[in-house]
């Protein structure tokens, strides 16, 4: 079993020193995110999301099933994350922490309206599942997976259903006959992970008169930057400035002002990324829409009134 490479003291010191100056190894600023690419290589619900060198492939699928007894008018949604050596040689087991964060970001925050997945209360509902495959890992898996999953959910369409009310039979209508239906997504939660470091290596400096150690905070850490961070703070927020979840544990303490600062930064990111996702989704839906292609090819295009 391979282990993750241990942080080398020299390179760690070097990276820390340039962090103190406000630079990073890949010449980004502390608050800069790596460029994001979104591709829809296949059917509805399949998204390939790239952020720097971190690549994630999400595939959303749905099937009809019986709802839980205690949740008779709701559908089901589950996310499974596959972490195997394809992403990084030392990955060999699933990270339940990752699963929980994503589940909280999307399921608990009701991004996906579960009630809309109900077909016949108590008998038939949709079970939507998102399968996440990490293709390449270079840090910041949480942000990438969250964004990829919500994009995939917004992209996905499930076949329409015909309900025979007399027999309570549900029939799936093939997509050729009727257009598939998108899921009811109420909001788009975006996660941002902040990595924190002490700005001096000695944790307990005896001469320090300031009780709160000043710290360095950066967004979108690479694998190397992640390997020696003191702790991380995850903020999941949407464009309506609603925080869906927050998680911070361990390391040193943060002041409430610092936390609020991070929330503001993550809101900005959420706005930008949501707009980007929406642009990409529109582009893709245009490509899949046969009408649009015809419209584009028409000779009588709209003339711009001078």
């Amino acid at each position, binding site marked *: 079993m391979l282990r993750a490479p241990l942080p080398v003291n020299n390179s760690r010191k070097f990276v820390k020193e340039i962090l103190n100056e406000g630079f990073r190894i890949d010449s980004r600023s502390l608050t800069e995110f790596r460029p994001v690419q979104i591709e829809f290589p296949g059917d509805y619900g399949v998204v390939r999301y790239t952020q720097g060198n971190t690549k994630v492939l999400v595939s959303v699928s749905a099937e009809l099933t019986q709802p839980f007894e205690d949740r008779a008018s709701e559908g089901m949604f589950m996310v499974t994350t596959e972490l195997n050596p394809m992403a990084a040689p030392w990955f060999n087991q699933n990270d339940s922490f990752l699963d929980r964060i994503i589940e909280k970001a999307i399921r608990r925050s009701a991004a996906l309206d579960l009630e809309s997945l109900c077909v016949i209360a108590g008998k038939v509902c949709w079970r939507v599942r998102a399968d996440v495959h990490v293709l390449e890992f270079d840090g910041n898996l949480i942000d990438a997976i969250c964004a990829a999953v919500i994009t995939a959910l917004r992209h996905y369409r499930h076949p329409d259903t015909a309900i025979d009310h007399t027999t309570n039979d549900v029939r799936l209508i093939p997509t050729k006959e009727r257009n598939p239906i998108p899921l009811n997504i109420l909001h788009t939660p975006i996660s941002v992970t902040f990595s924190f470091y002490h700005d001096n290596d000695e944790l307990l400096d005896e001469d320090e008169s*300031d009780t709160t150690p000043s710290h360095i905070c950066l967004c979108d850490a690479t694998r190397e930057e992640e390997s020696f961070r003191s702790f991380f703070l995850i903020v999941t927020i949407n464009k309506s400035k609603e925080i869906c979840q927050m998680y911070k544990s361990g390391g040193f303490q943060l002041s409430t002002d610092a936390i609020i600062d991070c929330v503001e930064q993550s809101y900005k990111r959420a706005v930008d990324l949501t707009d980007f996702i929406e642009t990409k989704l529109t582009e893709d839906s245009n490509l899949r829409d046969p009408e649009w292609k015809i419209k584009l090819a028409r000779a009588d295009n709209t003339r711009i009134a001078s």
Partner: protein
Amino acid sequence: MSLLVTRKSNNLNSLEINDSDDYKNNAVVTPGEVVTEEVTWMKGHGTFTDSRGIKASLAGTVTRVNKLISVRPLKGRYQPEVGDHVIGRVLEVGLKRWKIEIGAAQAGTLMLGSINLPGGILRRKSESDEIQMRELLKEGDLFNAEVQGVFGHGTVHLHTRSLKYGKLRNGFLVVVPSQLIVRSRSYSHILQSGVNMLVGINGMIWLSKQTEEPSAVDTPAITRLEEETQWSIYSDENEFIPPITRSSIARYACCIKALAAFEAPISDSTVNAAYEASLQYQSETLMNPEIQNNIAIMALKSS
């Protein structure tokens, strides 16, 4: 057992211990509490430095020895010190060493070169010794030893290089909190009714049948050591123990447990006093908490 230190206020150079240090000796502190704001003190166990000064990291009492300030917890695992007499149990047989459970934060180590090999003190260990380690001490064996050294990370090295130390037989182990053991010069005590008590500072007490040749002797001449280090010292065979001795051992064990439950100090005098006090009770009732309480109280009164 409290480390009371007399304040040499005239010797301490310009440290206003009477003013800035609001705490008297033996004051109770809790984690995160500032013990003193002067950082020039030497920081002992149970303290750490912060921007606000020296803080306690344990709940306990502040003790000062000259310039060393530390916090003694009231509860905690045994903390080994060099020269301690301990009783240990073998956990693992490793390469030229045994891993020993002594009730501390980390396991102790007994090196193959630190024991008395059968055949005499001058016998060098051979390869066959390394392979036959299990014939000497195997997993689960009890023995008493002395702490040779304490290293970083809490690793403890033991040795049994004396006739006083070695495998334990013919008896019964009683485990009590290590803080209750009173440190004294000798750890092997001959009790009444043919019972021998071996006290380990780590809280393990071995009550055994008194053997004809008392194993607790002073360091003998080398020739005697050679004679006596036969393979028999590593034997697992118990001798015949008459029922009377067995019941005395059991009674002593209950008395020690009674003292421990009362958080009383455990020494040969208190144990004997407890035994005397327990004689009025039937042996079946000795584990009754009320009776144990009475025994402990009477023992402390008379000792």
